[in-house]
């Protein structure tokens, strides 16, 4: 994935707009205002990927989706386990610390967050590029950070040395949860981005 500077800028801008739109979607889902703050992007070298969020052995939650259509890509939201529990509390309106185990209902709530975040990102891309893209059903993984992000590293290891990572915070009534959103377009989609931007 040889991302030139213009393409990086475009993906970053779209990613940030997508994140902001995702907060709108969450607000709609919850019927309360969710504010996106401090969205930022960076290209992360492949070898550094497992070291995010406190290291490869830390317990975390990954929400994984693929998109199909004109944009074929993978999306992984990753957050520390305790933050995922807080996010569930935030979504269902419970006091922080209520959720301690991620059962099927909690996983479903997290999957829906992945759906909305990815869906709004795809909508943003579709609007800008006039493309059609649909997200797959989400998969929620609870495991070590390194193992979850192996999904990302295994996909790109053969073709790229870096991956676009979007980081931001959702805030609801003064409570905030930071999430990492990894975006991995396939080689053909990346070429289409390049062609469209040139």
């Amino acid at each position, binding site marked *: 994935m040889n991302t030139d500077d213009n393409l990086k800028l475009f993906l970053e801008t779209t990613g940030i707009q997508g994140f902001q739109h995702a907060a709108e979607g969450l607000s709609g889902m919850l019927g309360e205002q969710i504010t996106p703050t401090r969205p930022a992007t960076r290209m992360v070298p492949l070898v550094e990927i497992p070291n995010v969020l406190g290291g490869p052995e830390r317990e975390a939650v990954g929400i994984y989706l693929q998109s199909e259509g004109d944009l074929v890509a993978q999306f992984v939201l990753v957050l520390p386990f305790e933050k995922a529990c807080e996010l569930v509390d935030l979504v269902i309106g419970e006091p922080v610390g209520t959720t301690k185990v991620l059962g099927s209902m909690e996983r479903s709530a997290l999957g829906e967050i992945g759906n909305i975040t990815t869906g709004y990102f795809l909508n943003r891309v579709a609007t800008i590029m006039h493309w059609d893209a649909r997200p797959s059903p989400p998969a929620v993984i609870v495991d070590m950070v390194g193992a979850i992000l192996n999904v990302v590293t295994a996909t790109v290891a*053969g073709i790229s040395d870096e991956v676009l990572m979007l980081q931001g915070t959702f805030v609801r009534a003064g409570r905030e949860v930071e999430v990492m959103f990894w975006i991995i377009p396939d080689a053909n989609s990346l070429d289409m981005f390049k062609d469209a931007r040139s």
Partner: protein
Amino acid sequence: MADQALPVGLGEIKISNSPGDVLVAYGLGSCVGVGMYDPVAKVAGMLHAVLPQSLNGTEQVPGKFVTTGVPKLIEEMEKAGALRSRLQVRMAGGANMLTAPGAKQAFNIGERNVLQAHTTLDTLRMRLQAEDVGGTVGRTVRLFVNDGRMTVKALGSQEKALT
């Protein structure tokens, strides 16, 4: 003296003959960790491979791939004084982290990594002594230089010896 953890990152090969060292590949998902140990020379080595093989055959980092990483690991072990015929070979990892409908087919990389490791070791006439592979959970694998113990730990489970 406390053990010194020597992390083996993505695509890396690490060798050690320092008795206090422990080679560690943290949080393996679909990746495989291949450990080799010469009990006489007390040389240990570990490979953390990401994919079965290079797409274009021109990869600059041999440790990224099973096909290039395994022979390179043997080569580095021999350079450090190990004897090929004495090498104890063990492997862990190769999980399928995605079990969602439709995702498995695209992501059988763990299984492919394991199959490729078997094939490559067979080709090199190296016997795999033990393995803990597959499944749907991540693993941390450790190889102790002083006695050649190799252990595997999954989230929420006890660390177990790979023998």
